[in-house]
Protein backbone atom coordinates (compact mmCIF):
# COMPACT_ATOMS: atom_id res chain seq x y z
CA UNK A 1 0.00 0.00 0.00
CA UNK A 2 2.92 2.32 -0.61
CA UNK A 3 3.50 4.09 -3.91
CA UNK A 4 6.47 2.95 -5.98
CA UNK A 5 9.39 5.42 -6.15
CA UNK A 6 9.20 8.29 -8.63
CA UNK A 7 10.95 11.55 -9.41
CA UNK A 8 9.02 14.67 -8.42
CA UNK A 9 9.04 17.84 -10.52
CA UNK A 10 7.62 21.13 -9.29
CA UNK A 11 7.17 23.53 -12.23
CA UNK A 12 6.40 27.17 -11.41
CA UNK A 13 4.64 27.99 -14.69
CA UNK A 14 2.35 26.29 -17.20
CA UNK A 15 5.11 26.61 -19.85
CA UNK A 16 7.53 24.83 -17.56
CA UNK A 17 4.97 22.07 -16.94
CA UNK A 18 4.39 21.73 -20.70
CA UNK A 19 8.15 21.46 -21.21
CA UNK A 20 8.43 18.71 -18.59
CA UNK A 21 5.51 16.85 -20.16
CA UNK A 22 7.09 17.13 -23.62
CA UNK A 23 10.28 15.60 -22.24
CA UNK A 24 8.83 12.97 -19.90
CA UNK A 25 5.27 12.02 -20.98
CA UNK A 26 6.48 9.31 -23.37
CA UNK A 27 8.11 7.50 -20.44
CA UNK A 28 4.87 7.67 -18.47
CA UNK A 29 5.10 10.93 -16.51
CA UNK A 30 1.79 11.99 -14.98
CA UNK A 31 0.42 15.29 -13.66
CA UNK A 32 -0.30 15.60 -9.94
CA UNK A 33 -3.02 18.13 -9.06
CA UNK A 34 -5.32 17.08 -6.19
CA UNK A 35 -3.98 13.54 -6.17
CA UNK A 36 -7.14 12.09 -4.66
CA UNK A 37 -7.42 9.45 -7.39
CA UNK A 38 -3.81 9.26 -8.57
CA UNK A 39 -2.19 8.79 -5.14
CA UNK A 40 -4.44 5.85 -4.13
CA UNK A 41 -3.93 4.33 -7.60
CA UNK A 42 -0.19 4.54 -7.00
CA UNK A 43 -0.56 3.08 -3.51
CA UNK A 44 -2.51 0.17 -5.01
CA UNK A 45 0.14 -0.11 -7.75
CA UNK A 46 -2.45 0.47 -10.46
CA UNK A 47 -0.30 3.41 -11.59
CA UNK A 48 3.48 3.60 -11.39
CA UNK A 49 4.64 6.76 -13.14
CA UNK A 50 8.43 7.21 -13.14
CA UNK A 51 7.89 10.99 -12.92
CA UNK A 52 5.20 13.12 -11.29
CA UNK A 53 4.74 16.71 -12.36
CA UNK A 54 3.20 18.53 -9.39
CA UNK A 55 1.34 21.59 -10.69
CA UNK A 56 0.25 22.84 -7.25
CA UNK A 57 2.93 25.54 -7.25
CA UNK A 58 1.68 27.20 -10.44
CA UNK A 59 0.07 30.55 -9.58
CA UNK A 60 -3.33 31.45 -11.04
CA UNK A 61 -4.49 27.94 -11.88
CA UNK A 62 -7.01 28.01 -9.01
CA UNK A 63 -9.23 30.59 -10.71
CA UNK A 64 -13.00 30.20 -11.05
CA UNK A 65 -14.37 33.04 -13.14
CA UNK A 66 -17.54 33.80 -15.03
CA UNK A 67 -16.51 34.77 -18.53
CA UNK A 68 -19.27 35.46 -21.07
CA UNK A 69 -21.31 32.31 -21.65
CA UNK A 70 -19.17 30.05 -19.48
CA UNK A 71 -17.51 29.54 -16.12
CA UNK A 72 -13.74 29.24 -16.50
CA UNK A 73 -12.42 26.68 -14.01
CA UNK A 74 -8.65 26.44 -13.60
CA UNK A 75 -6.70 23.22 -13.08
CA UNK A 76 -6.27 23.83 -9.34
CA UNK A 77 -9.87 24.76 -8.45
CA UNK A 78 -10.83 22.26 -5.73
CA UNK A 79 -14.22 20.58 -5.24
CA UNK A 80 -14.43 22.36 -1.89
CA UNK A 81 -14.17 25.77 -3.62
CA UNK A 82 -17.68 25.18 -5.01
CA UNK A 83 -19.30 24.45 -1.62
CA UNK A 84 -20.73 27.96 -1.53
CA UNK A 85 -22.04 29.57 -4.72
CA UNK A 86 -19.11 30.67 -6.87
CA UNK A 87 -21.52 32.70 -9.04
CA UNK A 88 -24.82 34.27 -8.01
CA UNK A 89 -28.07 32.57 -8.97
CA UNK A 90 -29.06 29.02 -9.81
CA UNK A 91 -25.80 28.13 -11.58
CA UNK A 92 -23.68 28.61 -8.46
CA UNK A 93 -26.34 26.93 -6.30
CA UNK A 94 -26.37 23.91 -8.61
CA UNK A 95 -22.58 23.53 -8.50
CA UNK A 96 -22.64 23.86 -4.69
CA UNK A 97 -25.37 21.23 -4.48
CA UNK A 98 -23.38 18.82 -6.66
CA UNK A 99 -20.04 19.48 -4.92
CA UNK A 100 -21.42 18.14 -1.64
CA UNK A 101 -22.02 14.76 -3.30
CA UNK A 102 -18.37 14.35 -4.30
CA UNK A 103 -16.39 11.91 -2.15
CA UNK A 104 -15.76 12.96 1.45
CA UNK A 105 -15.10 16.35 3.03
CA UNK A 106 -11.30 15.90 3.46
CA UNK A 107 -11.05 14.63 -0.13
CA UNK A 108 -13.01 17.59 -1.50
CA UNK A 109 -10.51 20.01 0.04
CA UNK A 110 -7.78 18.67 -2.28
CA UNK A 111 -9.43 17.00 -5.30
CA UNK A 112 -9.86 19.24 -8.34
CA UNK A 113 -12.63 19.86 -10.88
CA UNK A 114 -10.25 19.56 -13.85
CA UNK A 115 -8.65 16.46 -12.34
CA UNK A 116 -12.07 14.79 -12.37
CA UNK A 117 -12.49 15.60 -16.05
CA UNK A 118 -8.98 14.33 -16.86
CA UNK A 119 -9.46 11.13 -14.82
CA UNK A 120 -12.88 10.51 -16.45
CA UNK A 121 -14.23 8.04 -13.91
CA UNK A 122 -17.72 6.98 -15.10
CA UNK A 123 -19.09 7.88 -11.64
CA UNK A 124 -17.66 11.40 -11.58
CA UNK A 125 -20.20 14.08 -10.68
CA UNK A 126 -18.25 16.79 -12.51
CA UNK A 127 -18.01 14.68 -15.68
CA UNK A 128 -21.80 14.32 -15.59
CA UNK A 129 -22.13 18.07 -15.01
CA UNK A 130 -19.84 18.89 -17.97
CA UNK A 131 -21.63 16.41 -20.24
CA UNK A 132 -25.07 17.74 -19.33
CA UNK A 133 -24.45 21.50 -19.23
CA UNK A 134 -21.88 21.49 -22.02
CA UNK A 135 -18.17 22.25 -21.60
CA UNK A 136 -14.89 22.75 -23.38
CA UNK A 137 -11.61 21.32 -22.16
CA UNK A 138 -8.59 23.56 -22.75
CA UNK A 139 -5.40 21.59 -23.33
CA UNK A 140 -1.92 23.07 -23.35
CA UNK A 141 1.25 21.53 -24.69
CA UNK A 142 4.47 22.85 -26.21
CA UNK A 143 2.70 22.65 -29.57
CA UNK A 144 0.13 25.19 -28.37
CA UNK A 145 -3.42 25.19 -27.07
CA UNK A 146 -6.58 23.45 -28.21
CA UNK A 147 -10.12 23.31 -26.88
CA UNK A 148 -12.10 20.06 -27.03
CA UNK A 149 -15.91 20.10 -26.71
CA UNK A 150 -17.26 17.66 -24.15
CA UNK A 151 -19.01 15.62 -26.85
CA UNK A 152 -15.54 14.66 -28.18
CA UNK A 153 -13.78 14.44 -24.82
CA UNK A 154 -14.52 10.98 -23.42
CA UNK A 155 -13.20 7.89 -25.18
CA UNK A 156 -14.43 5.40 -22.60
CA UNK A 157 -14.21 4.72 -18.89
CA UNK A 158 -11.16 6.61 -17.60
CA UNK A 159 -10.07 7.48 -21.12
CA UNK A 160 -10.13 10.86 -22.85
CA UNK A 161 -8.71 12.36 -26.03
CA UNK A 162 -6.05 14.22 -24.03
CA UNK A 163 -2.59 13.32 -25.32
CA UNK A 164 -0.04 12.34 -22.66
CA UNK A 165 2.00 15.52 -23.27
CA UNK A 166 -1.04 17.78 -22.87
CA UNK A 167 -1.98 19.54 -19.63
CA UNK A 168 -5.67 20.22 -18.96
CA UNK A 169 -5.31 23.86 -17.84
CA UNK A 170 -8.96 24.89 -17.77
CA UNK A 171 -12.50 23.66 -18.20
CA UNK A 172 -15.04 26.10 -19.62
CA UNK A 173 -18.39 25.03 -18.23
CA UNK A 174 -21.38 26.38 -20.17
CA UNK A 175 -23.78 28.62 -18.32
CA UNK A 176 -27.30 27.17 -18.19
CA UNK A 177 -30.12 28.99 -20.00
CA UNK A 178 -31.57 32.06 -18.28
CA UNK A 179 -34.56 31.07 -16.13
CA UNK A 180 -33.75 27.36 -16.17
CA UNK A 181 -34.00 25.28 -13.03
CA UNK A 182 -32.10 22.12 -12.19
CA UNK A 183 -32.24 18.95 -10.19
CA UNK A 184 -29.61 16.37 -9.34
CA UNK A 185 -29.96 12.88 -7.93
CA UNK A 186 -27.25 10.43 -6.98
CA UNK A 187 -27.54 6.98 -5.47
CA UNK A 188 -24.84 5.20 -3.51
CA UNK A 189 -24.83 3.02 -0.43
CA UNK A 190 -22.92 5.47 1.77
CA UNK A 191 -22.70 9.24 1.36
CA UNK A 192 -19.39 9.96 -0.35
CA UNK A 193 -18.99 6.58 -2.01
CA UNK A 194 -18.73 6.29 -5.79
CA UNK A 195 -22.13 6.83 -7.39
CA UNK A 196 -23.89 3.71 -8.59
CA UNK A 197 -26.13 5.92 -10.71
CA UNK A 198 -26.76 9.65 -11.04
CA UNK A 199 -28.81 12.05 -13.12
CA UNK A 200 -28.77 15.78 -13.75
CA UNK A 201 -31.82 17.41 -15.32
CA UNK A 202 -32.93 20.94 -16.08
CA UNK A 203 -35.41 22.93 -18.14
CA UNK A 204 -37.08 26.32 -18.29
CA UNK A 205 -40.79 27.03 -18.48
CA UNK A 206 -42.32 28.92 -21.37
CA UNK A 207 -46.10 29.30 -21.36
CA UNK A 208 -46.37 26.27 -19.10
CA UNK A 209 -44.26 24.06 -21.37
CA UNK A 210 -40.75 22.71 -20.81
CA UNK A 211 -38.04 24.17 -23.07
CA UNK A 212 -34.25 23.71 -23.29
CA UNK A 213 -34.61 20.33 -21.62
CA UNK A 214 -31.32 18.79 -20.51
CA UNK A 215 -31.19 15.27 -19.09
CA UNK A 216 -27.83 13.61 -18.39
CA UNK A 217 -26.87 10.37 -16.71
CA UNK A 218 -23.66 9.42 -14.92
CA UNK A 219 -22.25 6.20 -13.42
CA UNK A 220 -24.72 4.20 -15.53
CA UNK A 221 -22.64 3.81 -18.68
CA UNK A 222 -18.90 4.02 -19.36
CA UNK A 223 -19.24 7.69 -20.19
CA UNK A 224 -21.72 10.27 -18.89
CA UNK A 225 -24.00 11.70 -21.56
CA UNK A 226 -27.24 13.46 -22.34
CA UNK A 227 -30.16 11.29 -23.35
CA UNK A 228 -31.67 12.89 -26.46
CA UNK A 229 -34.64 10.50 -26.54
CA UNK A 230 -35.67 11.43 -23.00
CA UNK A 231 -35.16 15.14 -23.65
CA UNK A 232 -37.27 14.98 -26.84
CA UNK A 233 -40.13 13.32 -24.95
CA UNK A 234 -40.17 16.22 -22.46
CA UNK A 235 -39.56 19.17 -24.79
CA UNK A 236 -42.73 21.24 -25.21
CA UNK A 237 -44.70 19.23 -22.64
CA UNK A 238 -46.08 20.60 -19.38
CA UNK A 239 -44.01 19.32 -16.41
CA UNK A 240 -45.49 16.86 -13.95
CA UNK A 241 -44.95 13.46 -12.35
CA UNK A 242 -46.67 11.61 -15.24
CA UNK A 243 -44.59 13.35 -17.92
CA UNK A 244 -41.41 12.76 -15.93
CA UNK A 245 -42.16 9.06 -15.42
CA UNK A 246 -43.08 8.43 -19.05
CA UNK A 247 -39.94 10.17 -20.32
CA UNK A 248 -37.64 8.59 -17.72
CA UNK A 249 -38.83 5.12 -18.72
CA UNK A 250 -37.45 5.71 -22.22
CA UNK A 251 -33.97 5.62 -20.63
CA UNK A 252 -34.40 1.92 -19.82
CA UNK A 253 -34.24 1.06 -23.50
CA UNK A 254 -31.65 3.67 -24.38
CA UNK A 255 -28.80 2.86 -21.99
CA UNK A 256 -26.08 0.23 -22.07
CA UNK A 257 -25.38 -0.10 -18.37
CA UNK A 258 -22.11 -0.99 -16.71
CA UNK A 259 -22.02 -4.21 -14.76
CA UNK A 260 -19.88 -5.26 -11.83
CA UNK A 261 -19.86 -7.96 -9.18
CA UNK A 262 -22.17 -6.01 -6.88
CA UNK A 263 -24.41 -4.34 -9.43
CA UNK A 264 -26.02 -6.18 -12.36
CA UNK A 265 -26.77 -4.23 -15.54
CA UNK A 266 -30.54 -4.51 -15.01
CA UNK A 267 -30.20 -2.85 -11.62
CA UNK A 268 -28.44 0.13 -13.19
CA UNK A 269 -31.06 0.22 -15.98
CA UNK A 270 -33.81 0.62 -13.38
CA UNK A 271 -31.71 3.07 -11.41
CA UNK A 272 -31.24 5.27 -14.51
CA UNK A 273 -35.02 5.61 -14.76
CA UNK A 274 -35.43 6.39 -11.07
CA UNK A 275 -32.51 8.85 -10.99
CA UNK A 276 -33.86 10.78 -13.99
CA UNK A 277 -37.35 10.91 -12.51
CA UNK A 278 -36.04 12.21 -9.19
CA UNK A 279 -33.70 14.76 -10.81
CA UNK A 280 -36.64 16.07 -12.85
CA UNK A 281 -38.82 16.22 -9.73
CA UNK A 282 -36.15 18.29 -7.98
CA UNK A 283 -35.90 20.57 -11.03
CA UNK A 284 -39.67 21.09 -10.86
CA UNK A 285 -39.40 22.20 -7.23
CA UNK A 286 -36.63 24.59 -8.21
CA UNK A 287 -38.60 26.45 -10.87
CA UNK A 288 -38.69 30.25 -10.45
CA UNK A 289 -41.12 31.18 -7.71
CA UNK A 290 -40.42 27.91 -5.89
CA UNK A 291 -37.74 27.30 -3.32
CA UNK A 292 -34.59 25.93 -4.82
CA UNK A 293 -32.07 26.36 -7.55
CA UNK A 294 -33.74 28.80 -9.91
CA UNK A 295 -33.37 32.44 -10.87
Amino acid at each position, binding site marked *: *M*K*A*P*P*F*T*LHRPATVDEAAGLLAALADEGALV*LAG*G*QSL*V*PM*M*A*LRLAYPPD*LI*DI*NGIAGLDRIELSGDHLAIGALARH*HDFRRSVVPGPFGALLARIS*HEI*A*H*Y*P*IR*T*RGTFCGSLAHADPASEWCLTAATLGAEMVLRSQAGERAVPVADWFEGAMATVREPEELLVEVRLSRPAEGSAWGFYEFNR*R*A*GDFAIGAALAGYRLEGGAMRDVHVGIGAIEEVPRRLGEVEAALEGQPPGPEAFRTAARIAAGAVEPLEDFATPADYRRDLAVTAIERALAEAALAQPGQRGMAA
Partner: protein
Amino acid sequence: MKIALTVNGRPAALDVAPRTTLADCLRHALGLTGTHLACEHGVCGACTVIVDGAAVRGCLTLAVQADGAEVTTVEGLAGDGALTPLQEAFRRHHALQCGFCTAGILTTLHALLTENPDVEACEIREVLSGNICRCTGYIPIVEAALEARAAYRRGGDPAQ
Protein backbone atom coordinates in the same frame (compact mmCIF):
# COMPACT_ATOMS: atom_id res chain seq x y z
CA MET B 1 13.85 15.89 -1.04
CA LYS B 2 14.27 18.54 1.67
CA ILE B 3 11.09 20.06 3.10
CA ALA B 4 10.30 22.45 5.93
CA LEU B 5 6.91 22.56 7.60
CA THR B 6 5.31 23.55 10.87
CA VAL B 7 3.72 20.71 12.81
CA ASN B 8 1.57 21.56 15.81
CA GLY B 9 3.26 24.93 16.04
CA ARG B 10 6.82 23.58 15.92
CA PRO B 11 9.07 23.92 12.87
CA ALA B 12 10.31 20.69 11.31
CA ALA B 13 12.97 20.30 8.61
CA LEU B 14 13.07 16.88 6.99
CA ASP B 15 14.54 14.97 4.10
CA VAL B 16 11.87 12.67 2.65
CA ALA B 17 11.47 10.48 -0.42
CA PRO B 18 8.81 11.98 -2.71
CA ARG B 19 6.67 8.86 -2.39
CA THR B 20 6.35 9.25 1.40
CA THR B 21 2.83 10.15 2.40
CA LEU B 22 2.24 12.92 4.91
CA ALA B 23 0.77 10.36 7.32
CA ASP B 24 3.88 8.14 7.16
CA CYS B 25 6.11 11.18 7.53
CA LEU B 26 4.24 12.31 10.65
CA ARG B 27 4.33 8.86 12.21
CA HIS B 28 7.79 7.65 11.24
CA ALA B 29 9.91 10.76 10.86
CA LEU B 30 8.30 12.85 13.60
CA GLY B 31 7.02 10.11 15.92
CA LEU B 32 3.50 11.56 15.95
CA THR B 33 1.67 8.25 16.08
CA GLY B 34 -1.66 9.78 17.09
CA THR B 35 -2.43 9.93 13.37
CA HIS B 36 -3.62 6.43 12.52
CA LEU B 37 -3.45 4.54 9.23
CA ALA B 38 -5.86 1.83 8.21
CA CYS B 39 -6.93 1.61 4.57
CA GLU B 40 -4.20 3.83 3.08
CA HIS B 41 -6.32 4.70 0.07
CA GLY B 42 -8.60 7.43 1.30
CA VAL B 43 -11.65 5.45 2.33
CA CYS B 44 -11.50 5.12 6.12
CA GLY B 45 -10.57 8.63 7.31
CA ALA B 46 -8.35 7.52 10.21
CA CYS B 47 -5.34 9.49 8.92
CA THR B 48 -7.13 12.83 8.50
CA VAL B 49 -4.98 15.81 9.53
CA ILE B 50 -5.31 19.56 9.07
CA VAL B 51 -3.08 21.29 6.49
CA ASP B 52 -3.29 25.09 6.33
CA GLY B 53 -6.73 24.95 7.94
CA ALA B 54 -8.20 22.28 5.65
CA ALA B 55 -8.90 18.70 6.70
CA VAL B 56 -7.05 16.37 4.32
CA ARG B 57 -6.33 12.68 4.05
CA GLY B 58 -2.79 12.12 5.35
CA CYS B 59 -2.51 9.02 3.15
CA LEU B 60 -3.50 10.87 -0.04
CA THR B 61 -1.21 13.85 0.50
CA LEU B 62 2.49 13.47 -0.17
CA ALA B 63 4.78 14.84 2.52
CA VAL B 64 6.52 16.95 -0.12
CA GLN B 65 3.18 18.63 -0.84
CA ALA B 66 3.08 19.87 2.75
CA ASP B 67 6.36 21.74 2.21
CA GLY B 68 5.88 25.19 3.77
CA ALA B 69 2.51 24.29 5.26
CA GLU B 70 1.15 24.40 8.79
CA VAL B 71 0.05 20.94 9.84
CA THR B 72 -2.10 20.12 12.85
CA THR B 73 -2.46 16.55 14.08
CA VAL B 74 -4.58 15.21 16.92
CA GLU B 75 -1.61 15.82 19.23
CA GLY B 76 -1.79 19.52 18.41
CA LEU B 77 -5.47 20.13 19.11
CA ALA B 78 -5.15 20.60 22.87
CA GLY B 79 -2.45 22.49 24.71
CA ASP B 80 -1.21 22.05 28.28
CA GLY B 81 -2.78 18.63 28.78
CA ALA B 82 -6.30 20.08 28.89
CA LEU B 83 -8.97 18.76 26.54
CA THR B 84 -10.50 21.01 23.89
CA PRO B 85 -14.25 21.61 24.09
CA LEU B 86 -14.69 19.10 21.24
CA GLN B 87 -12.62 16.46 23.03
CA GLU B 88 -14.45 17.23 26.27
CA ALA B 89 -17.77 16.71 24.46
CA PHE B 90 -16.49 13.39 23.08
CA ARG B 91 -15.76 12.24 26.62
CA ARG B 92 -19.09 13.43 27.96
CA HIS B 93 -21.08 11.73 25.20
CA HIS B 94 -19.00 8.51 25.12
CA ALA B 95 -18.26 9.32 21.47
CA LEU B 96 -15.46 6.79 21.27
CA GLN B 97 -14.93 3.21 22.20
CA CYS B 98 -11.69 1.65 20.92
CA GLY B 99 -10.46 5.05 19.79
CA PHE B 100 -8.73 3.99 16.57
CA CYS B 101 -10.86 6.26 14.37
CA THR B 102 -11.06 9.07 16.91
CA ALA B 103 -7.97 11.04 15.84
CA GLY B 104 -9.27 11.36 12.28
CA ILE B 105 -12.75 12.25 13.47
CA LEU B 106 -11.50 14.95 15.84
CA THR B 107 -9.35 16.60 13.15
CA THR B 108 -12.16 16.39 10.59
CA LEU B 109 -14.73 17.89 12.96
CA HIS B 110 -12.30 20.55 14.20
CA ALA B 111 -11.77 21.77 10.62
CA LEU B 112 -15.50 21.60 9.90
CA LEU B 113 -16.58 23.44 13.06
CA THR B 114 -13.89 26.08 12.60
CA GLU B 115 -15.14 26.68 9.06
CA ASN B 116 -18.81 26.66 10.02
CA PRO B 117 -19.71 26.69 13.74
CA ASP B 118 -23.41 26.65 12.80
CA VAL B 119 -23.15 23.42 10.82
CA GLU B 120 -26.33 21.38 11.07
CA ALA B 121 -26.70 17.77 12.13
CA CYS B 122 -27.38 16.55 8.58
CA GLU B 123 -24.11 18.01 7.33
CA ILE B 124 -22.21 16.63 10.32
CA ARG B 125 -23.58 13.20 9.42
CA GLU B 126 -22.62 13.63 5.77
CA VAL B 127 -19.08 14.63 6.76
CA LEU B 128 -18.78 11.74 9.23
CA SER B 129 -19.60 9.33 6.41
CA GLY B 130 -15.94 9.78 5.49
CA ASN B 131 -14.73 8.35 8.81
CA ILE B 132 -15.29 4.67 9.40
CA CYS B 133 -16.03 3.79 13.04
CA ARG B 134 -16.57 0.07 13.55
CA CYS B 135 -17.58 0.41 17.20
CA THR B 136 -20.69 2.11 15.72
CA GLY B 137 -20.44 5.19 17.86
CA TYR B 138 -21.89 7.59 15.32
CA ILE B 139 -24.90 8.81 17.32
CA PRO B 140 -22.81 9.99 20.28
CA ILE B 141 -20.22 11.44 17.87
CA VAL B 142 -22.91 13.58 16.21
CA GLU B 143 -24.19 14.62 19.63
CA ALA B 144 -20.69 15.60 20.74
CA ALA B 145 -20.13 17.64 17.58
CA LEU B 146 -23.46 19.43 17.99
CA GLU B 147 -22.64 20.33 21.58
CA ALA B 148 -19.13 21.54 20.68
CA ARG B 149 -20.54 24.06 18.19
CA ALA B 150 -21.15 26.56 20.98
CA ALA B 151 -17.44 26.77 21.79
CA TYR B 152 -16.58 27.40 18.14
CA ARG B 153 -19.30 30.06 17.86
CA ARG B 154 -17.73 32.01 20.70
CA GLY B 155 -14.89 32.78 18.30
CA GLY B 156 -11.18 32.28 18.51
CA ASP B 157 -9.63 28.87 18.15
CA PRO B 158 -11.07 26.59 20.82
CA ALA B 159 -8.26 24.12 20.13
CA GLN B 160 -5.66 26.10 21.99
